[in-house]
């Protein structure tokens, strides 16, 4: 009974946040367009030489994904905070961690998944090989949920503060550096004919760690911010 009610709560929160996101489609699209734009700016900034662009591609795509997910993180709790929904959620008898996990998953499906799906198209602009593209997508699939989950802690800590967006990036970006290192490392391993599994395994390990700890930490951070 208890188990199924936890799962019900999770599904309910995910569905609610997805419906809300679909009603405000512009927000989702803005993040995606920002991602595409930042990536497209790099060739304009450093020149159209294909050899160099191919080398830079994984880093550029990963950094752009990192920045794009920072943009959407500000909205993770703020709308619910402003209209009082978050307070009601915290008063609910169910586990706040589970609820937070639901919001993280919904946030990833709305802001992370579109980036993952868009990345191969942008990778082609940078003349990446098929194998490198495949590894890039696997890396992004493993890595972008971590960004949403670690970012949620920052979003909870900076809830309702002035200048919250910039502060959020300042707090979260340093914590996301390992994800960036392993994500780009995997793609670079393809080009140097090395094994990609260590990088992807480490990303997977980080994902599992984040999955276990971040919902609980975020719930504690929300309690601190809502006092």
């Amino acid at each position, binding site marked *: 009974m208890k188990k199924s009610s936890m799962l019900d709560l999770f599904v309910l929160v995910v569905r609610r946040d997805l419906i809300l996101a679909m009603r405000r489609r512009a927000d989702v699209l803005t993040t995606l367009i920002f991602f595409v734009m930042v990536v497209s700016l790099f060739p304009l900034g450093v020149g159209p030489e294909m050899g160099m662009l191919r080398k830079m591609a994984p880093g550029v795509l990963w950094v752009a994904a990192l920045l794009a997910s920072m943009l959407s993180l500000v909205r993770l709790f703020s709308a619910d905070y402003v209209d009082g929904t978050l307070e009601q959620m915290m008063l609910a008898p169910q586990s706040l961690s589970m609820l937070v996990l639901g919001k993280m998953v919904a946030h990833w499906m709305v802001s992370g998944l579109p980036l993952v799906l868009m990345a191969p198209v942008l990778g082609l602009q940078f003349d990446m090989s098929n194998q490198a593209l495949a590894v890039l997508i696997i890396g992004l699939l493993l890595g972008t949920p971590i960004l949403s989950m670690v970012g949620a802690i920052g979003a909870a800590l900076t809830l309702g503060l002035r200048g919250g967006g910039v*502060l959020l990036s*300042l707090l979260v970006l*340093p*914590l996301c550096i390992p994800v960036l290192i392993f994500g780009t490392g995997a793609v670079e391993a393809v080009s140097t004919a090395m094994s990609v599994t260590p990088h992807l395994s480490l990303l997977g390990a980080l994902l599992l760690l984040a999955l276990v700890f971040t919902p609980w930490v975020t719930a504690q951070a929300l309690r601190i911010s809502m006092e």
Partner: protein
Amino acid sequence: MAINWFKYSAPSTFYGLAGKAIPWFSISSAILFAVGLYIGFFVAPTDAQQSEAYRIIFIHVPASILSMFIYLVMAGYAALGLIFNTRLSSMMASALAPTGALFALISLWTGALWGKPMWGAWWVWDARLTSELILLFLYLGYIALHASIDDPRRADRASAVLAIIGSVNVPIIYFSVKWWNTLHQGATIKFTGTSMHVAMQQAMFTVLVACWLYAVAVSLARVRSIILERERNTQWVSELPEAKL
């Protein structure tokens, strides 16, 4: 006789104790700095490979060690404050942050000064340098978060969560040499003896202790200001001789 361990966990009693302790820590720090730097610059022999330029390690290494150590101490105090709700622990955590950030900056700066003659570049994207830079970012994030929350209680607790999460980064710095194994030289001081000259070791450890004493003195002075600022409306502050001027 039962000792009351918690006597000095009250800001009002700790304020006086800190005031008495500061001169001892600062004077001994100054003496040890003078001794350590004298040994480092005049007694220690010239290095066979790096000639005179290596002498910057007498500042660089203690600063790097302390930048990491202070972060752990800060996270420890923050955790204490978060778990047991002790006001003084949170004040200590926020008093340590600027000193830690300063040591991280000194470590990066002296590293760059050493890197130019040795590696031929001010900066290389080596794992250790990068991790130290990330540590500086973590300090700055902590200070920024603490500064942007007006309610001191929420500021303490929110930045405590951040400090604890960030402390995961400190072991990564330490193990980064083994993990990525790049340009930065491996550890010279090992538990199984060392390849360093005795005078070099003496100088380095003396400066390390001096830096530590300095950090204690400065953060005690800072925590006294924080105590005064937060408790300015209480009776005991208004009875202080310095408040009556």
